């Protein structure tokens, strides 16, 4: 089928539904956070931090079509106002049959529970921040087309297949010849449990990291010459979550490989574990353990070992306002050859709110 024919069919489908259109119903929400950090490493420093503010819109355009947008303003030192906006999600969803949808636009790549659930809403985060792998391994966004099914059968099976711009791309163009591919499945055997697995593949012909590869600078720990040849990138993820009234568990296992002609196959992995004990509906003391190891022959993320252990406490004043306090110990090893290790010890208090 030619591209023009596909466009015509899509246009006809959309037109049919807009002819039957009803008044759109639109809901706006906002999420933001404020932090106080106290860092004891290399002499104590303390400061307040105004975190990203997230404007969320969900609009039902008609019975079959809805729009979702998530627009974030966050600190950026290079901006004249110290803040810059970004479009984090912007998508149109077409519910074509029962619980099956086609989604087009910019999405959070559905590779694991965290990226598929929490997005930029700190209010929903069980801990202070995203897993470490989100700054290095996880391709956070994809701009493309997604085929989604959910709540199928007694086990509430779900699937997500995505074809979209890969790691090297921006939201406007990609100079790579190929697109990335994501296949994810999950099931919810009970109301509280979700088990998921996913596979992501991308071919980076010049090994560039675009805006979809993470919010932090992924190469900050590496000062050597960057590899600019071709690279195959895979990410396999396993997620387990169990959020009940009385306890909460989330584990995100990430296995990443990169393959280059020069250094061969590099195997990297990361694991994030969170456990909280909820009582009296509002209180949740918790522990978090996060670890990532990048192999010595990796030419995309580059060798790195980082681990974090934290204990924290969350108190929910209401579904739209909570406070978290966390004490954590971080250990980083940037260079496998000389085993130089950096250690950090600090604490944070975070107010997260929705409006």
């Amino acid at each position, binding site marked *: 089928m030619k591209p023009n024919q596909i466009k015509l069919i899509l246009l006809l489908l959309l037109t049919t539904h807009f002819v039957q259109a009803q008044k759109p119903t639109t*809901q706006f*929400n906002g999420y933001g956070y404020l932090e106080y950090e106290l860092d004891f490493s290399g002499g104590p420093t303390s400061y307040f931090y105004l975190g990203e503010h997230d404007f*969320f819109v*969900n609009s*039902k355009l008609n*019975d*079959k079509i*809805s729009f*979702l947008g998530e627009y974030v303003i966050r600190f950026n030192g290079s901006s004249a106002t110290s803040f810059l906006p970004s479009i984090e*999600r912007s*998508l149109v*969803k077409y*519910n074509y049959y*029962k*619980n099956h949808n086609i*989604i087009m636009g910019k999405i959070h790549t559905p590779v694991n529970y965290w990226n*598929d*659930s929490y*997005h930029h*809403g700190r*209010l*929903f985060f069980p801990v202070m921040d995203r897993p470490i792998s989100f700054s290095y391994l996880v391709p956070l966004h994809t701009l493309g087309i997604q085929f989604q099914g*959910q*709540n199928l059968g007694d086990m*509430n099976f779900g699937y997500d297949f995505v074809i979209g711009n890969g790691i090297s791309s921006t939201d406007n163009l990609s100079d790579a010849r190929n697109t990335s591919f994501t296949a994810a499945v999950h099931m919810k055997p009970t*109301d509280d449990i979700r088990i998921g697995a996913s596979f992501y593949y991308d071919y980076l012909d010049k090994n560039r990291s675009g805006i979809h590869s993470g919010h932090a600078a992924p190469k900050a720990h590496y000062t050597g010459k960057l590899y600019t040849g071709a690279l195959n990138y895979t990410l396999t993820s396993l997620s387990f979550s169990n959020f009940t*009234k*009385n*306890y909460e568990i989330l584990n995100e296992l990430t296995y990443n490989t990169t393959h280059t002609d020069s250094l061969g196959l590099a195997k990297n992995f990361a694991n994030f574990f969170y456990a909280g*004990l*909820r*009582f*009296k*509906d509002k209180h949740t003391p918790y522990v978090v353990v996060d670890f990532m190891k990048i192999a010595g022959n990796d030419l995309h993320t580059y060798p790195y070992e980082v681990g974090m252990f934290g204990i924290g406490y969350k108190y*929910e004043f*209401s*579904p*739209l306002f909570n406070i978290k306090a966390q004490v954590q110990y971080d250990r980083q090893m940037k260079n496998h050859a000389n085993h130089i290790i950096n250690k950090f010890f600090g604490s944070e208090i975070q107010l997260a709110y*929705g409006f």
Partner: protein
Amino acid sequence: MKKITIIITLLFTIIGGDSLYGQVSMNAVTIIGNKTGFSSNSAKEIKQVFRGKYANWSTREQVIIVLPASKSSSAEIVASVIYGNTVSGVQKYWLSLVFQGRSNPPVFLDSDEEIINYVKRTSGSIGVISSGNQKVPGNLIISINN
């Protein structure tokens, strides 16, 4: 060892303090619907509907979920019976589901009368109120097969 046993017992007492949620009978609520394609259903299936499992009914009508808002007198009993949770737990559940982009938001209304009137005039809607309300039209009631 004795101290550990006491601590564990205390812990389970604290976290189990709200374990009554979810144990209230479905008889405590009345389910009402308009053109949902069924006049009776199992308790399990009804609960799945209210958890956003379905986007459309078998009649191809879109599923519109209508729930009591937090200040409604029915909010607590509905949260307990249908969701096995607290009122704020239900609010969090829906905030999160809508934010994930996996469901359209439900309609929250302040009183049982508003829910009845909304369901009466909205095709494809399904609502839940406290049982015993005399103003519910018989043709809206969905009976629960246990």
